[in-house]
């Protein structure tokens, strides 16, 4: 796997943008949890607090035409891939102005203009999905890539195996980003995975595999940039396992009781936003970061304000569905 050479490091501007987006995600999720406490959300909402470095840094070097598949826990991917915060929030609140007109909701957000197709709530489904997109890219002879970000739980699904085998066999331009946050819902990794370091499995497909600190945005960026470059060159897929942790449980319906306090405290110390702040503050000074933070907060605040007063959609029959049956129901 890539020697994380300086060649792949993000520029200062890219790094600052990663920082700003991570703050957007954090504030967005804090606001969602607050809305949930007030009983103003609908359905489960899965937060990625503590994992922002993966979703944001892994997508930072992608083009809008590069295609990304995400999961039920996709806020960092949505923001990382450049979607408007307002369109995300409006979608989560089921408004007509949401990026899918309110039809998709929190888990299935998609935006074709930004190459996000899309969130997916069938665990593992994003893996063959990205592989299929990579097959299309290959057929079209483009140098775009497809990326899937998926969890340690998803890595145990059969489609993960099937898709990685096909991707390697056909040398497809896909990057497999395994976001290992130590749990699948409430089930600890050691209860659902027979081995600790999942990147070992890459050898079973003859592709590069590596495990990295997923809470270090720069390490994530550099490693993924290398995998992306490899895919663009037509050399096939790679697996990058990013170690991270969910700081606030699996979703707003988490009733707790399965994570140890020690474990949570240990990971709180590794907060990727704080770590990025420390690195960047030394380079550009705290004032610049404060300004970016304020900007991010304003963006989130505005998004909620507008989205929450946006109209709800009205149902329209869908022509692709069976017309007779719709007409009669």
């Amino acid at each position, binding site marked *: 796997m890539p020697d994380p050479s300086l060649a792949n490091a993000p520029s200062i501007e890219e790094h600052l943008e990663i920082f700003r987006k991570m703050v957007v995600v954090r504030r967005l999720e804090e606001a969602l949890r607050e809305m949930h406490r007030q009983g103003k959300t609908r359905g489960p909402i899965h937060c990625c607090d503590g994992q922002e470095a993966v979703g944001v840094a892994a997508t930072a070097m992608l083009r809008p035409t590069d295609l990304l598949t995400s999961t039920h826990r996709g806020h960092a991917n949505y923001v990382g891939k450049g979607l408007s915060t307002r369109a995300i929030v409006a979608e989560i609140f*089921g408004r007509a102005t949401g990026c899918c007109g309110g*039809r998709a909701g929190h888990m299935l957000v998609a935006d074709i203009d930004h190459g996000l197709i899309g969130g*997916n709530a*069938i665990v593992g489904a994003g893996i063959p999905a990205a592989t299929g997109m990579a097959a299309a890219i290959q057929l079209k002879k483009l140098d775009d890539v497809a990326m899937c970000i998926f969890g340690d739980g998803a890595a145990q699904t059969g489609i993960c195996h099937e898709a990685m085998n096909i991707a390697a066999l056909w040398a497809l331009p896909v990057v497999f980003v395994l976001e290992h946050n130590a749990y699948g819902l409430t089930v600890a990794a050691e209860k659902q995975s027979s081995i600790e370091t999942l990147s070992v499995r890459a050898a079973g497909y003859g592709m590069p595999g590596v495990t990295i600190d997923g809470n270090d945005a720069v390490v994530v960026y550099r490693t993924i940039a290398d995998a992306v470059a490899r895919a663009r060159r037509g050399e096939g897929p790679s697996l990058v396992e990013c170690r991270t942790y969910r700081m606030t449980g699996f979703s707003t319906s988490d009733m707790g009781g399965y994570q140890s306090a020690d474990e949570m405290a240990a990971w709180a110390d590794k907060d990727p936003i704080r770590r990025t702040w420390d690195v960047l503050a030394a380079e550009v000074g705290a004032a610049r970061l404060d300004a970016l933070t304020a900007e991010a907060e304003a963006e989130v605040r505005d998004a909620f304000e507008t989205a929450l007063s946006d109209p709800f959609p009205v149902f329209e029959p869908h022509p692709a*569905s069976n017309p007779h049956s719709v007409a009669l*129901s």
Partner: protein
Amino acid sequence: MTSLRYAEALNRALREEMTRDPMVWLFGEDIATYGGVFKVTKDLLGEFGPGRVRDTPISEQTLTAMAVTAAMAGTRPVLEIMYADFLPLSIDALVNQAGVFDYIWGGQVSIPMVLRTQGGGGAGAGAQHSKSLDAFVAHIPGLKVVAPATPADAYGLLKAAIRDPNPVIVLEHKLLYNLRGEVPEDGGLIEIGRARTAREGRDVSIFATSRMVHLSLEAAEKLAAEGIEAEVIDLRSLRPLDVGAIVASVAKTHHAVVVNEGWRFCGYGAELSATIMEQAFDDLDAPVERVGAMDVAIPYSEPLEKTVLPDVEAIMAAVRRARR
């Protein structure tokens, strides 16, 4: 009799059957340490230990296939599939394995497995977590399929399912877990294949499944105000179907409405409608009316979801059409 929530009734059924028979064991995602995302398996890990209550990886296809053969090999596995939306991952193991070998191997094996899952919309869970895929499992020979609508039925049908020598699919509903109701102290098994008259009436028969039973009862109350007395039959068992109860009710009312939360086209309601027409044609004064979800992926936003899913108004409208 005790008053229990539907989820508690299921929990008690599991506890009692596990106590009674050491070969009953549970597995599924998040069912052990956490006690299940709907808490149906709460405390059972502590009571029965990690050998008999197992958290699993996210591997529905294999878990279902394992349930089939663990049952063949002499145990009574109860598998939880977290959402009915994931049943498609189980179908190969059901249609190409579970439903096949008892007959094809000439009775050499029996397959006493239970697959519990929960479906249904109305919770804003989106297109991949809100479906009722009853039709997929009800189509498979060799399986039984039940869909309890009350705590007592949840308790009695799950117990019967665990003791049944055949594969049984138990379809629960996410919006019923908090429903309270009286449950018998012990025993209380319910024979799989028997419908229940939830409300008597002379003007029209409403045949409903799962949560739709409650909506149908609500519709019946409102219709009574219009002078229409609807009989509401809770089918409880989707396969085998209690054709006798259906025919008897239609013979009385001469009008029938079927209500299933799944999609209409090629859905479970189609079978009900066809069966009624075949079995009670001469008794029918009007076509059987079919109520179900609109044939489209279930959208997230509340007003859209409400439009797509069957509701009390849709049932009332169908009854009025059936009585035309």
